[in-house]
């Protein structure tokens, strides 16, 4: 075989192999990311909500932790997360009414992690805790216990932004309102 022809054949094969690797990787990513996009939004749970009172401290504290589970086969990077928190005042009517929630709002938390966000391995879970203080001035918002003597904590306005390791792909979803009954401590 002519030397030039052999060289060109090698170049052609190199391009084919490189293209093949890119194609297979892209195809695999397309399937795995789509699977993750289908499963991940329904795998976010409220791990724990605590409302501790400390002796001598007028302000209330609310500690809220979320559990992000990864049921997919590809690592997921949490890039941003935000939510708002309210305590139901027990008034009749729709407890999830936007205006009502605004009037019951205790606070909000948001974090933007970007590329430095934690990676959730396949089958793994990540727990993120957020603490917020309710100033004594707003303590009237905390004076609403339900019939069981517990707080009805409403977590709403949740927004999750996530991506995948090594790609620029960015996904976002907005989980629905979550309600947790929390016993007062202290």
């Amino acid at each position: 075989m002519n030397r030039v022809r052999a060289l060109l054949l090698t170049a052609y094969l190199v391009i084919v192999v490189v293209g093949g690797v890119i194609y297979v990787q892209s195809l695999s990513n397309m399937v795995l990311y789509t699977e993750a996009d289908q499963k991940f939004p329904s795998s976010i749970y409220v791990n724990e909500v605590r409302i501790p009172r400390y002796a001598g401290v007028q302000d209330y504290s609310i500690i809220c932790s979320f559990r992000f589970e990864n049921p997919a086969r590809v690592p997921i990077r949490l890039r941003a997360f935000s939510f708002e928190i309210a305590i139901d005042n027990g008034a009749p009517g729709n407890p999830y009414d936007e205006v009502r929630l605004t009037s019951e709002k205790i606070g909000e938390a948001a974090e933007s992690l970007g590329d430095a966000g934690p990676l959730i391995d396949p089958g793994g879970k990540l727990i993120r805790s957020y603490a917020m203080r309710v100033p004594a001035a707003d303590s009237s918002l905390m004076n609403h216990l339900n019939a069981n003597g517990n707080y009805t904590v409403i977590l709403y306005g949740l927004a999750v932004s996530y991506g995948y390791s090594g790609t620029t792909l960015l996904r976002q979803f907005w989980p629905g309102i979550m309600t947790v009954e929390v016993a007062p401590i202290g």
Partner: protein
Amino acid sequence: MAELKPRLWAFLEVMMYSLAGSIPVAAFFILAFFPGYVPFSITETGTILILTPLLVGVLFGFMLSERDLRSVAAGTLVIVISSSILVTAFIMSPILAGVASAAPAVAPGEVLEIYIAQRILLFIVLSFPVLLLGAVVGRALSERVVPSEELRLELEQLRKETREWHELLERRAELQRQEARSARKEEPGLEPKK
């Protein structure tokens, strides 16, 4: 049967190079249009879209230096068709793999078939002319750089015939010179006195 064998080989060769060539063409189209699914990111999508089919086309044309131009053009068409199938398979892969009921690339409210048809049409419009141009240029260059066996034999035969003609002409010229010399010797003024 014996006549069919080389034609079958030629067909298989064109098909093999075409199918192989369709892989990088489809991969680089995906790289340009679906960058989020590729393990690395690029910024020069336009360059990728033009250069890859051109490069693949030129090399494809080179590879088919022993085939005629019609085979090269047909091979280019095969590259475009099989690349389109690969791009379609990529878009539909989540549905084919059973992980989703709709392709994630397709926005809600958009019809999958229309989305795919648009992308494939765009792909054909962008890649086919460049691919064909590259293949024709590659094929033309190959005649200079790597001439086909048939062309090489033809050239050798031509050179051989030319050499033979030269030798014949030289021999003839030599004969004419010899004849001229003997004719001068035979002239009366030059004849030796008896």
